[in-house]
Every structure is written in structure tokens, then in C-alpha cells.
């Protein structure tokens, strides 16, 4: 405990900087992930034949160990922030893409037919019916991906991207447990807080009429 307090008095400011780096890396990756995966997921529902193939491919990609992916990017993109963000971005794709696809595919067929029958164009149907109704599912995909990413972002320090992983790796190399804790505890807290926060966001963005908690 004393060690930890000592550590904080020496490294307090640095800890805040590292935490910020960590949040920054994860946020950029997840943001890119959302921008790419949600439209792609919507697109996949239009071509169900290709969809299964692409989802399968991404599933395989997901099984490659994260360390290996990071290592693979070194020859391509070098080290530092960019390859780390690219790797994390790839990891965020799968949960978001799959949930977007499933969420939109599972919108009730009669609602789709009502939409077409009333004269909605394809884009109006996506915008006014499919996306709003799939929002809870898409959001839970985003939530899952974000929490994962915060955990995985610790590995980014291995290729020199910084973040709280720096403490964990230093602690492991120098055999100083307080360093490991100083990295692990904030990461865990960050993940928990993000999960809670996104849970709230999920309820908030879900259209009122389909919120489950509603007493009817």
C-alpha cells in the first residue's frame, strides 16, 4: 500500500497522461470501427449471399491472436500509434458488424412490407425503419466492442503506442508489482465505467416505443 502511494506521488501526473493516451487510442479505434462497420453491416443485409462469407471471414480474423496482429503490422505500418489503432480498429469491426447485420435482418418482415407498401424508398426504409428498430442490437455490439478494445489497448504499448499498457509491461520486465497494478486497475475501472456509461447510452438512443423497461 505504501508502495502504491509512493508510486502515485512520483508518477501521478504521468498516470493521468497514460490514462488519457489509453482512452484516446481506444476511442479513435472504436470511432473508426463504428463508421465502417455500421454502414457495412447495413450493406451486407442487402446481399445476404455474400454476407455469410464476409462474416465468416471476419470470424476467422478474430481468432488470430492480438499479439500476432500487432506484430504483423510492424513491417507494414511500423511502430507507434497508427499500427496500434489500425489493429484495434480491425478487432472492433466484428462485434459491431455482426450486431448491425443481425439487428437489421431481424426487423419484422411485416414492418418492412408495410414500409415498402406505403411507398418508402430503400434509403427511407433503412433510415426510418430498419436502423431505429435495430438500434438496441447495434448499440450492444458497440458497447461490447468498446469494452474489449479498452482491454486490448494495453497491448498497444508493446509496439510503442503508449497507454496504460506501458505500466503493465514495465512492471512485468522490472518485476515491480505496483507498476502492474497501476496499469491494470485503471484499465479495469475504465472498462467498467465505459460499460455502465454505454449501457445508459443504449437505453437513451433506443426509441421510446420499443424500450423494454417500459411499464405497459
Amino acid at each position, binding site marked *: 500500500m505504501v508502495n502504491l502511494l509512493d508510486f502515485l506521488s512520483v508518477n501521478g501526473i504521468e498516470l493521468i497522461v497514460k490514462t488519457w493516451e489509453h482512452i484516446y487510442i481506444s476511442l479513435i479505434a472504436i470511432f473508426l470501427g463504428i463508421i465502417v462497420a455500421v454502414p457495412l453491416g447495413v450493406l451486407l443485409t442487402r446481399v445476404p449471399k455474400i454476407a455469410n462469407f464476409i462474416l465468416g471471414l471476419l470470424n476467422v480474423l478474430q481468432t488470430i491472436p492480438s499479439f500476432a496482429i500487432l506484430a504483423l503490422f510492424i513491417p507494414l505500418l511500423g511502430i507507434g500509434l497508427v499500427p496500434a489503432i489500425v489493429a484495434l480498429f480491425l478487432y472492433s469491426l466484428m462485434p459491431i458488424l455482426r450486431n448491425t447485420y443481425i439487428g437489421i435482418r431481424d426487423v419484422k418482415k411485416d414492418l418492412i412490407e408495410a414500409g415498402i*407498401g406505403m411507398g418508402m424508398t430503400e434509403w427511407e426504409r433503412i433510415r426510418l425503419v430498419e436502423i431505429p428498430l435495430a438500434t438496441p442490437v447495434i448499440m450492444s455490439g458497440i458497447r461490447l466492442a468498446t469494452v474489449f478494445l479498452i482491454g486490448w489497448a494495453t497491448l498497444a504499448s508493446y509496439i510503442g503506442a503508449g497507454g496504460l499498457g506501458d505500466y503493465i509491461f514495465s512492471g512485468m520486465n522490472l518485476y515491480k508489482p505496483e507498476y502492474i497494478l497501476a496499469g491494470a486497475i485503471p484499465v479495469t475501472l475504465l472498462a467498467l465505467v465505459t460499460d455502465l456509461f454505454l449501457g445508459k447510452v443504449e437505453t437513451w438512443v433506443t426509441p421510446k416505443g420499443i424500450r423494454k423497461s417500459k411499464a405497459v
Partner: protein
Amino acid sequence: MFRHFPNNLTHPCLTHNCVSDYSSNAIVHKLLILPKLLYNIIISLKNYTEVFFLLTFEHVSKIYKGQKRAVDDLNFQIEKGEFIVLIGPSGCGKTTTMKMINRLIEPTEGTIFLNGENIMHMDPVKLRRQIGYVIQQIGLFPHMTIEQNISLVPRLLKWSSDKQKERAKELLSLVDMTPDYLNRYPNELSGGQQQRIGVLRALAADQPLILMDEPFGALDPITRDSLQTEFKKLQRKLKKTIVFVTHDMDEAIKLADRIVIMKDGRVVQFDTPDEILRNPANEFVEEFIGKERLSQVRPHIQTVDQIMNPAPVTVTPNVSLTEAIKIMKQRRVDSLLVVDQNNMLVGYIDFEIIDQKRSKASKIEEVIEKELFKVETGTLVRDTIQTILKRGLKYVPVVDAENRLVGIVTRTNLVDVVYDSIWGDGDSEIKAQ
């Protein structure tokens, strides 16, 4: 039919200028103009049919790959303001026929004209926005408020938001729902209310034609019955053309101006309900209508006015309960209709109510039951019979348009009708024996 012709008469060739100048040029000109003139005449004729027929099917067929013809060579015309019901056993092609009108399914052969225009030459999105559509599962969007649901098509058509709101309110009042429903969500409404909204949604942009795919099928019998009555009234008032799919013959008879009976993708009979009931085209139709229904049709008994008892036993609200029970005993009845001094129907009381409440109340007005089912004069007997049987009523009061009591139809009256239908028409049989 000739109201379009003045347009043609103004054509240069038909004015004196053209005739007076008889140069060869003019003759050539005249010859050249002839086909155009013919074309104009044809267009005028077509316009004439447009006035009458909203929808025309010409040799329309639908063939699914590797299957038999789902719809086979349909030819019919639907007039403006008509209520058409498509009916038949499942798989007869009735839903396919309906969905071809708004191109949810496209015909393989033949053409469908809407207002004289081939629907295959129209933009499907624009076409669908001109046609109201009500589906069986109601299909309200759960994430939209009632207002957003009703004004969906106006929104797609980019009406101003004030106009959308105004329209939604106006429509709600048509089905006697208050404007505070506007901000609610579909899951807060009962099934009957939801389908009312479903119907309003199809009326929102004032579409002249509405397609309905078994819209009341998922509702309980009593809600269905009242929604049918309500909707028929609404349709008469708004003069909409309706194409309605069902497999319920009672519903078809109650609602339709003309019924299309289909079997194996073909039209078996296309006629008014009365004509179909009186002269079924073949055995299939007879069987489909059912023997019971055929026997219920008495050409000479049409409306409740003809069978009702015109002098029901009534009391006024200020009569005492003791007096009321005395009247019941004298007249040998178990309930009394309560009317005010202008003969307006207020409600009813029966001996059960009096028995339960006599210690607490002394006047009829304190115990009167105001909820009761009544019919207006002119209602068809067969609809009333359906209602009495479905709801298990003992009697139905008949009122005029101002809610004045004019008579009562009791189960005893119904016995007369049934007796009539069994024996009344039996003269010829008796003679034959």
C-alpha cells in the same frame, strides 16, 4: 362521354381556315393529321373509361418459377368508390392479386391500369404513395408515435409539419379518438385501436384507393364486428375505393359492394353479395358460401324495419322501481327500454338490476344501464342476426338517425325470419308434392 371532344374540334384542320384553303399542301396536311385525330379520339374514349373505372385488369397472370399459375388471366374493372372484396380458399391467389396492384408482386403477363395508366410504366414508389395499404399484422412502427405512424406517407411526400399534425388530428377524430393519443406509442393501445390507426395511416395522404389484406383477421370477434361497421361507415363517408382481401364470408357480405370469389387463380364469380347469395355461379360458390347463409337470405326481408316490433315496452327515467317491476309483470317482459320525454333511447333496466339495487335506489334513473348495443333503421337483417348470435344478446333496440327509439328486434322476431326461410318459400315444394 363526349365531353372531351370539344378539344378535338379546336384542331386547325377542323376549323374553316383549313377547309377554305384547298391547296395540295393542305390535303397532305389533312392526310397527315388523320392518324393524330384518330389518336385523339381514342384518348378521349380512354379518358371516358377513366372517369368510371379506377382499376382495370387485362389478362393478368402471375407465374412463379417452376410452379403453376398463381393468378390466371384475370380480367375485371373496379369502379371509383366501390368496395371490392376478394375472397377464396387459401392459395387461390387473392392476396397475390391485391399485391400486384401496388407492385409488391409484379404480374408476369397482362397489364393493370390505374386511372388509365399502366402501373408498370409508373415509378413504384410514387405509385405506392397514391395507394393506401393496410396489412393483417397491423404493421404499425413500434418506434414511432401514433402521430408519426399516421402521418408517415404525408412525411414521405414532404408535407409541412403543421399540415401533417393537422391531418393526424383530423383523422383521429374520424374514429372518435382524442388528440392525446397522438403522442402515445402503438404498444400502449389495444389491438382494435391499433388497427384503427393502421386504417388511418392508409387514409392519411387522401389516397383514392386503399388495399387491405385481411385487416381485421387478428382481432377478437366483437372488436372485429364493431371495426367492420365503423369502417364501412367511414368508407361511405369518404367515398374511397377499397380492395379488401379476406377469407371470412360474413365479413365479405357485410362490407362488399361487389365480391370477387376466386379459386385456383381464377375468378369464379364477381357480383354483388345479394346476387351471389341468390344465384351462386356453381357448386363451388354454393359450398363456399355455406348452406346456412344461403337459407338466411330472404329476398323479401331486407332490413330490420321489416321484422322489428314497432312498440317496445318503455319507461321514462323518473318512474319508480316498484312501478317498473309492475309494468314488467303486466307486459310479461324481463327488461324495459328507458327513453326520455322525446323518445330518445337512454338505456335499459332489467329485473336483475332492480333485484340487486332495489334497497338502495328508488327511481329508474339511479340504476339505469346505459351501455347497450343498438342498430339504426335500415340495417340489414343478416348483419343484425350475426351480431345477436355472436354477442349472445337477447334483443336489439332499433333507433333512427337521431337516436329516437323506433322498435326492437328480439330473438322471437328471429324465429319468424328462420321460420319464413324454412317454410315461407316452400309453396312450390308443397305443390310439387
